């Protein structure tokens, strides 16, 4: 089974010398319809979007003339408090989400690597959310994080607040997605950030979003790690145990280092998913109080279709693309080189 998600299979022996003349052209010819369609829809469209981002198309009326000076919209984009908040949110969210997902995914994989009754059931449960759409996830969690009912009500009914009361603490009743608070502000620590309008801290409303995303995707990380664990030869484990290593030691010193390539794949895949996040937040909270849960994906959608700021929406989408490409292209290049 494939370990790395871009595992490119067994090497392919070139058959070039055996091509018959007619077949020499047949292979590219058969690929042509798919490839042309895809390249137009990917590279052609990206090029067009980039052009739009530099154009004067700033209303419902299409205007593809180039703006003067040409980079104006990008300059504006990065000056917008909202987009600054979006970049902050996406960075905070990505870091939190990656950290928690990888830790949980790895932890669950190691647990399921053991022998015990009911293992298939656990694996089934942990992977289940992956089969659902982000919209379903978002709708369900939005209800759970409703501050008047949902989790807060459950805490109350389980007596958590009474227990807190014994220790002289107030009831635990967070606003979850409706909390506009941004904790910490790096602008006060780094003088270079003075020019930023948005508070550069951790928006608390991003935490419930992260929880929902972890719920949905930690099963994926677990499955990747389980597949990775499955490829580790029994001899390696045996050797470690012969050396007198405890189970903990074996995992820490032998298995984890062997899982590094899996971790790299998981991180890269999840990073690009995280940078593109749209559906989940759109369904859960939208842009949120004070843009506490706004992300570039939502920004693009609203600027383009609600405000008909095609130039601004296009520019933000190009920024998204660049962020994703930054992570994906090296990974892709390496994978293809290994073909």
């Amino acid at each position: 089974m494939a370990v790395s998600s871009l595992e490119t299979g067994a090497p392919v022996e070139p058959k070039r010398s055996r091509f018959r003349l007619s077949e020499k052209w047949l292979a590219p010819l058969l690929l042509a319809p798919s490839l042309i369609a895809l390249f137009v829809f990917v590279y052609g469209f990206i090029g067009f979007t980039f052009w739009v981002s530099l154009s004067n198309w700033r209303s419902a009326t299409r205007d593809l003339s180039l703006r003067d000076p040409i980079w104006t919209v990008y300059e504006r984009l990065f000056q917008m408090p909202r987009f600054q908040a979006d970049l902050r949110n996406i960075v905070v969210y990505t870091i939190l989400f990656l950290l928690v997902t990888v830790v949980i995914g790895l932890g669950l994989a190691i647990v399921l690597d053991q022998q015990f009754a009911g293992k298939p059931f656990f694996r089934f449960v942990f992977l289940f959310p992956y089969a659902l759409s982000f919209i379903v996830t978002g709708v369900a969690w939005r209800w759970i994080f409703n501050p008047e009912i949902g989790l807060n009500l459950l805490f109350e009914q389980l007596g958590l607040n009474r227990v807190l009361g014994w220790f002289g603490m107030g009831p635990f009743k967070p606003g979850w997605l409706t909390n506009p608070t941004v904790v910490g502000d790096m602008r006060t620590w780094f003088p270079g950030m003075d020019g930023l309008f948005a508070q550069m801290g951790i928006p608390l409303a991003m935490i419930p979003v992260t929880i929902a995303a972890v719920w949905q995707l930690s099963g994926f990380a677990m499955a990747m790690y389980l597949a990775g664990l499955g490829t580790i030869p029994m001899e390696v484990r045996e050797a470690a145990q012969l050396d007198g290593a405890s189970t903990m030691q074996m995992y820490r010193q032998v298995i984890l280092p062997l899982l590094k390539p899996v971790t790299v794949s998981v991180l890269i895949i999840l990073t690009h998913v995280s940078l593109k996040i749209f559906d989940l937040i759109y369904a859960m909270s939208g842009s949120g109080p004070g843009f506490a849960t706004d992300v570039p994906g939502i920004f693009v959608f609203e600027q383009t279709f609600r405000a008909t700021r095609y130039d601004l929406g296009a520019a933000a989408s190009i920024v998204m693309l660049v962020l994703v490409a930054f992570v994906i292209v090296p990974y892709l290049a390496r994978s293809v080189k290994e073909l």
Partner: protein
Amino acid sequence: MATSLPIEPAPRRPRLGSVKRIIGFGLLFLIVIFYLMPLYVMIVTGLKEAAEVTGSTMWRIPTSLSGGGFGEAWRRLSPNLITSIKLVIPATILSALLGSLNGYIFSKWQFRGSNLLFGLLLFGMFIPYQSILIPMLQVLRWLGIYGTLPGLILVHVIYGLPITTLIFRNYYANIPSELVEAARIDGAGMLELYRRIMLPLSIPAFVVVGIFQATNIWNDFLFGLTIITNPNDQPITIALNNLAGSFSVAWNVVMAGAVLAALPTALVYIFLGRYFIRGMLAGSMKG
């Protein structure tokens, strides 16, 4: 001390103490609760009557078995469920067929630059679709299929090509070249080889790709949202989101709707989980 006698089949079996074991199981149990909680909320809320949904009874099980919000959810969402089915089936079949052909050529008929083309193709599955939306809508309009199901199918087929091609390429790469060689000596041409040797061997790959693509397309949101303009023709995910966003709809109906929207992919996962996981590991993208 570890014993690694050949008759000891599982040296990986942990030798944790029973206290640790109990703590471990307790933790695992809590994690299971966390994973099941949203499903519980969806199903239980969906089964309740509107009056029971809010307030202190939210976490209780329903008091009556009347079907709760499901009737209303079905009435509102069934057209969209049908749209989603009419979308998923053709889009999945087309993208699987094309992916199979592409995968065959990329694995068995490499030519100068084919690996580069393959890499460029793969990049298509990682892009944020926001960055192609504006021209895509223009092109669909120009083709006269904007706002229609065929337009949405076309888009899903095209953006599904990278992943379907990748899965098939990997699958075919593992089919021994000797098999292909032998057939070639018999004088079979490229397409004949594909039809006679590769296709019959491809059933498992088609199942994997089919499940993976069907799930992805079913769960899509952005394309359905921007391409289909008539609310009654929109796929289920968009309809569900609209349902959740309208003030006049009670939450038991919304949750019942969420269950309806989740059911097809959930059933696929329950009954074909093995193939589902294979597709996930081979494709492993979401969103």
